[in-house]
C-alpha cells in the first residue's frame, strides 16, 4: 500500500518524531515501497494459523518475591540530563494556567 503525506505525519506524531518536509517526503516514498513489498504476505491463507509472538515454550516466568539490593540512586541518576535532589526533573506535563483555575 502507499502512504499519504498525512499518514506519514500521523505515524511520526505517534512515534514522537519530528520530521522536516524533506524527511516526510523521503519517508513517504521509502515506507510506501517497503509496504508494497510486505503486502505480498496477503497472498498467504492464514485464517487457521496461530500467531507467533515468541518462539520459546515459556509462559509467565516468575521470580521469587524476595528483596534484593537495588542499584545505587546516584548511579541511576548519573545519566539523567536534569536532576533535582533525588529526582529526575521533567518539563511541565500539565498546563499551569489550567491548573490554577
Amino acid at each position, binding site marked *: 500500500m502507499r*502512504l499519504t503525506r498525512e*499518514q*506519514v505525519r500521523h*505515524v*511520526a506524531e*505517534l*512515534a*514522537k*518524531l*519530528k*520530521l522536516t518536509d524533506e*524527511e516526510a517526503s*523521503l*519517508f513517504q516514498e*521509502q*515506507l510506501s*515501497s*517497503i*509496504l508494497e*513489498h*510486505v*503486502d*505480498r*504476505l*496477503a497472498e*498467504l491463507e*492464514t485464517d487457521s*494459523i*496461530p*500467531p*507467533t*509472538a*515468541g*518462539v*520459546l515454550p*515459556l509462559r509467565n*516466568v516468575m*521470580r521469587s518475591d524476595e528483596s534484593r539490593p537495588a*542499584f*545505587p540512586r546516584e*548511579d*541511576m541518576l*548519573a*545519566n*539523567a*540530563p*536534569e536532576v533535582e535532589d533525588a529526582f*529526575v526533573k*521533567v*518539563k*511541565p*506535563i500539565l498546563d499551569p494556567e489550567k491548573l490554577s483555575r
Partner: protein
Amino acid sequence: MELHQLTAHTASELLAQGEISSVELTQALLDRTECLDGTVRAYLALLTEQALADAERADALRREAGNLQGSSVSPLLGIPVAIKDVICVSGAPTTCGSRILENYFTPYEATVIEKLRAAGVVLTGKTNTDEFAMGSSTENSGYFTTHNPWDLDRVPGGSSGGSAAAVAAGMVPLALGSDTGGSVRQPASLCGVVGIKPSYGRVSRYGLIAYASSLDQIGTLARDVTDAALLLSVIAGHDPRDSTSMPVEVPDYCRALVPDIKGKIVGVPQEYFSDGIQPEVADAVRAAIDQLVDLGAEVREISLPHTEYALPTYYLVAPAECSANLSRFDGIRFGLSAPDAPDIWESYRLTRERGFGPEVKRRIMLGAFALSAGYYDAFYLKAQKVRTLIKQDFDRAFQEVDVIVGPTSPTTAFCIGEKADNPLQMYMSDIFTLSCNLAGICGLSLPCGFADGLPIGLQIQGPAFREESVIRVAYAYEQATEWHCQHPKVDVSIELGA
C-alpha cells in the same frame, strides 16, 4: 607466527606454557589496532588502559594458579575480546552507534560481560555497529562507517561490522556481536570469519540494549570454529535476569569439535539458490556441499517453502518491536535531551529528531504504522501468523535432516554507498539469515571460498538448542579446507593508500 595472527585457542596454549604473556599479546593487538584502525575504523572506543590492566590481572592469576597444584584456569584467561557497542560494559561508553546515547555510561553490566570477566578475558573496546543494530553495512552508524579489511572501499556487513572487521584484520581474536536478522552471520560472511548466532534463549540478553526482543541474540565472532565455540561456551546459559533465557543445560561445545560427520544428514533448501544470488557465491556453496558429501555426510534436497516471506515478515515484526523498545529514548532519564524545548511533548520530539538517524526513524515509523489502529491485523498480526509458517518449515525440515546448509549472504561485500539510498535493496542482503531468527533456531557462518579476493560465507543452520550440531559440521568442513587460513593484507593496502 606473529601474535596478532594467533587464534584464541593457540594463544591460550602459549599462555599456559608461559611462552607469551597476556600483556605482550594485548599490547601487540593494541599496537596493531593503532596502526590499522584509523583506516578500518572497527572500534568506537578503545579501552587501552583497562585492557592492559585486565591483562596484568590475568597474568598474575595465571602465575598464582601455576603455583597451586591441580588448579585449572579458564581457556580464555588473558585472551582479548572486543564487544559490540550494543552490550553494556561498566566503565566504557555504550552508544549503540547512536548519537542519542553519545555520552551514556551504563550503570550496570551485561550478563555476558560478567561471564567474560569471570573467565578472565581482556576487554579491548567497543566496536562499531549500525545504529541500534539496524542495518547490514555499518553505514547506519551515527559515527562513521567501518571498512572491510579485504577491500577498504567495501562494507564489512552489519550490523556487527565493527566486530567482524576487527577480528578479520587481526586486531583481536574474538568478539561479541548481536544478531536479530543476520547481524553476526552476514558480517562474518563478508569479512571471511566465523560467526555463530545461538538459538533464541541460549544466551542471556540482560544488558544487550534491545532492538527486537523476540529476535535478538548475542553471538560470537572469531577466526576459526574452535574459537567461536569456545567463546560461546563461556557466554551461554540460563540467566534469571532474562526471562526469555532458557533454563536448559549447556553442552560443552568443545566436545563437538570432532572432524567426523559420517552419516550426518545435510539439508539443502532449493529456495536458497534463488535468482538474486551472485553466481560465484552459489558455486562456492555448492562446492562446499560436495565437500561435505566427500566427508561422509548425506545430502538431501529439502524445501522451506515460506523462505520468500521471511523478508516481509521480518520487516513488520522487527520494526514493531523496535518502535516499542526505542520509545524509552525520550531525553528524560538518560541520553541526549532537548533543554530548549518549551514542554515535555516538544522535548520528546526534538530529542528523538536530533538523536536518531534515518534508518532508526524509518523502522520506528514502519513499526508504529504496523501496530496502529486499523492496520494491526493486516500487518502485524498477519506477520506473526506467517512467522508460524516459517517456523513450521524448519520444524518439518529438522525431522529429516541434522543441519541445513546454504549461502549466508547472496553476495560478497558490496561497495560503501552502493545500497545506502535504497533501504529495500539493503534489506535483501539478509534474505538467507532472517528466517533463522524468526524461527528461533541457531546458525553459523564460516568461510567457504573467495570471489575476486572477497570472502564467501557458508551458512549452517541447526534446530533450536542444537548448536553442537552446526559446530560439528562447521568444524569438519573447516578442518578439510584452508579458507580460514587466509587473512586480508590490510596493512599492505593501508600503506599503499597512504
